[in-house]
């Protein structure tokens, strides 16, 4: 082994000797040691590297601040829940109303009679330009069989959707029971006024 072959591998050899490790080495330890025994220049270089190696093995760490874990967790808490797993940690009083709302919305849309949908120009279906309602029907036909009750179904579905939506908004907002009671009073007062107006009109 020559000096130019030894020197690039010297620091790895010394580090491996210091750590008591072998395997996967890029040098032949026996050949390298034979060369060191014969070559004063490489021995001097090995001495420099051994000094550095010894210093580095006692390379001091810094003590993290005592509050670091708490600080990290406070910051992470702002991210909680993890976006990808949010659905797993949503409480039932969020996902039940949300599910009901989506279901009611679907029923409401599916039960609108086609002739009540606005007629606007649309894309081609089956070679002819279809109205907006015809396009919607393409998607809704499979759903419309069971709920084809016309306007009554639409009204019932709208009431269900409103109730579920209200439940959802209450669940998502952080209202106290007093605030919920006050909202109920306002809603019933508004409903009474509407009912009285309708009777007077008749």
């Amino acid at each position, binding site marked *: 082994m020559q000096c130019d072959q030894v020197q690039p591998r010297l620091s*790895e050899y010394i580090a491996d000797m210091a750590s008591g490790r072998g395997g996967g080495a890029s040098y032949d330890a026996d050949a390298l040691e034979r060369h060191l025994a014969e070559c004063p220049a490489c021995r001097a270089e090995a001495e420099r590297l051994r000094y550095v190696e010894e210093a*580095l093995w006692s*390379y001091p760490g810094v*003590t*993290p601040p005592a509050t670091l874990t708490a600080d990290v*967790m406070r910051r992470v808490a702002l991210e909680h829940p993890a976006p990808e*797993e949010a659905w797993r940690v949503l409480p039932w009083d969020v996902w039940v109303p949300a599910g009901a709302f989506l279901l009611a919305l679907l029923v409401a849309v599916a039960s609108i009679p086609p002739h009540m949908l606005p007629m606007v120009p649309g894309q081609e279906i089956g070679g002819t330009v279809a109205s907006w309602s015809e396009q919607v029907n393409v998607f809704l036909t499979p759903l419309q069989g069971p709920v084809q009750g016309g306007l009554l179904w639409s009204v019932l579905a709208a009431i269900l959707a409103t109730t579920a939506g209200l439940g959802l908004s209450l669940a998502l907002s952080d209202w106290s029971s007093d605030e919920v009671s006050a909202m109920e009073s306002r809603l019933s007062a508004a409903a009474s006024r509407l009912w009285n107006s309708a009777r007077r009109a008749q």
Partner: protein
Amino acid sequence: MARVERAPASAAPPGAGAVDDPLAALVERCRHGDMEAFERVVAETQSGVYNLAYSLLGNHEEAQDATQEIYVRVWRALPGFRGEARLTTWLYRIAVNSCLNRRRRLKGRLAEVEDDGILERLESSEANPADVAIQNDRNRTLWAAVRRLPAKYQTVIHLFYQQQLTYDEMAEVLAMPLGTIKAQLNRARHALADMLYSGQKEQRDAV
């Protein structure tokens, strides 16, 4: 010279399947949003991450902020972590990238905010005040020398000597071939020898 036994490098190549990870059970709980489990992971691993950040940024405030940012990223990404590497390997990969990006962002300002309170934060193994003073002096010289190295050499020195990662683990963390890792370590050690050995030899000759 201190002899440190390292854990044997994983026989399986990266991505070859689940690896033996002492934090695996906690990680699984974290993946399902368990904050308590994540707090334990943070407590177990924060020293290494903070030290890496401190080593690369050289400033307490920046290191603390970087550590928090790293764990926020880890928390966000945990649901996608499939255990193909050890958590610490994956964590250090995020930490190294994050710290190097921050270092680039702060390029001009980092020298201005250099922390001179390093001695108060260094861990000491000495009890005798005289020995502590000698060790402090040696530590300060070593830290100053390492801080003068280019960032890539600082990173490999930190991962190898302070975090005691194997060559294989370092290759995985830094996404570099083994040969490049060894070459960078070799150049870093020679650069440190140039900085540290001459001064030390002058002191010995004077005595």
